[in-house]
């Protein structure tokens, strides 16, 4: 199926990606051709097939809840773009 520019804009909003007009045009074309290719899957009847999300027969993995040293706050914050009073600072949310 072919993706419209409007649909590209909607998906970009979901993905929190700002796209320029050229990118919207290119992605509409490229994503359409990729989606056309993956539609090949519809050739296969899969009624009653159990989806396989994960190949390992592993379920919950537990460990003892012990107190262990963490990483010092200053080390973690050293990677932050903007910090104030030992906390991450971001532009206004509301």
């Amino acid at each position, binding site marked *: 199926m072919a993706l419209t520019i409007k649909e590209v804009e909607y998906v970009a909003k979901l*993905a929190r*990606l700002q796209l320029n007009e050229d990118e919207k045009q290119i992605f509409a074309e490229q994503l359409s051709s990729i989606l056309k290719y993956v539609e*090949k899957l519809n050739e*296969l009847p899969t009624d009653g*097939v159990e989806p396989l999300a994960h190949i390992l027969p592993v379920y919950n993995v537990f460990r003892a809840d012990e107190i262990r040293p963490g990483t010092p706050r200053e080390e973690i914050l050293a*990677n*932050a773009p903007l910090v104030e009073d030992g906390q991450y600072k971001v*532009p206004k949310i509301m």
Partner: protein
Amino acid sequence: MELHQLTIHELQELLSRKETSALEITQSIFTRIHAVDDQVRAFITLTEEEALANAREIDKQGEYGRIAGIPLGVKDIFCTRGVKTTCASRILENFVPTYDSTAAGRLFAEKGILAGKLNMDEFAMGSSTEQSAFFPTCNPWNLSRVPGGSSGGSAAAVAADEVPFALGTDTGGSIRQPASFCGVVGLKPTYGRVSRWGVIAYASSLDQVGTFAKDVRDCALVMNIISGKDPLDSTCVDLPVPDYSASLDGNVKGMKIAYPREYFQPGIDSHVQDAIKKALLKYEEMGAVVDEVSLPHSEYALPAYYLVATAEASANLARYDGVRYGLRDFEAANVIDMFSRSRAEGFGAEVKRRIMLGSYALSSGYYDAYYLKALKVRRLIADDFSKVFANFDLIVSPTAPTVAFNIGEQIGDPLTLYMNDILTVPINMAGLPAMSIPCGFHEGMPVGMQLIGPAFGESTLFKAAFAFEQNTDFHTFRPALEVK
């Protein structure tokens, strides 16, 4: 032979006989890197000073274990404490982790010496290392060709004798395809065999850590160190790790080897097919039983993979929002704009494309048609392999459809580039272990043979790969690079 040309086990022998030192080896490695990396461009970051200091300290202690005193390279997707880890992306260009990933950390705990961080396709999305945000890596066998990807820097560095071994990751072929293109040994272990803690995530149900080496013995040695349970990765399985080196006996008598007819189709270069067929004859000569099988859903693996992988990627990459680390756009007026603009500036085209595809496949109204459908097809693909492994020990195929292509040749068309992974993605979809080993040359470029085993059947891969290596000399060839 100079030190930088040797394998881990050769270096280890020299060290244990006190015929060389960690410092001499490390110096030899950096001399080599400075001589050839201007051309190959395998490294994003070099850690020379720390490596030399490390080597001196190890020599002072004078004890050499399995890899003590031996330098290594690490794909820039593994977090390394205090060493910049970029994932070849602008968005992480200045990111310095506060901890080591488990796999790299286990090598450091054995006193392996970090030589540097290796180039890759941004966020491991690509098959040529041309999607690195910084620069493409060149294939040491022919500098105008790609080294493969996404772990192209790791494969190229080992092939160019810049490091004896390197870590990589493989989500859809990112270890095996570059190993094939660069003529080295590359192993993607079973999903769950090696911890992924501290490895930057791409597609969590597919990603696996593995290794590049100059020969099969070295590959087994590294796997002995990095495999096994890690309390920090719940998907890393609590199963005993066999001594992989013990399976290197060269004996494949009676081993049942299957070759899937779907992996020998017209889309696969005939010279590549010929090289694999010759290798199969070699296995027969050595006493293995070789037979054709069918993996009937093979052609559906690639489209299903691109839905599963991109859906998971769109979720995994949501964390790059410019808040806690990474690139931030400071012009944005509010926080939502900051997310969108930071991500727009920080991600490259292929990463954006995959996030978009994945977000679409997961979006309301399309989830069943795309993502759920892909997971059902995934079951059929995994079942194909189970049926073959009920009767066979090993599956053999080409690793990639062609030898390494030219830089720039496929960059314009995402679908053509995705086709490179057609023989490797089914194995990730099924979570199986697979290895690429050199088995021939075409146009002066290496051809790789893919060995696929049942889940946790790495020992079988090592056994078969070692037997082939003992009876051929493809692994002994090295590219002739001009030394500057």
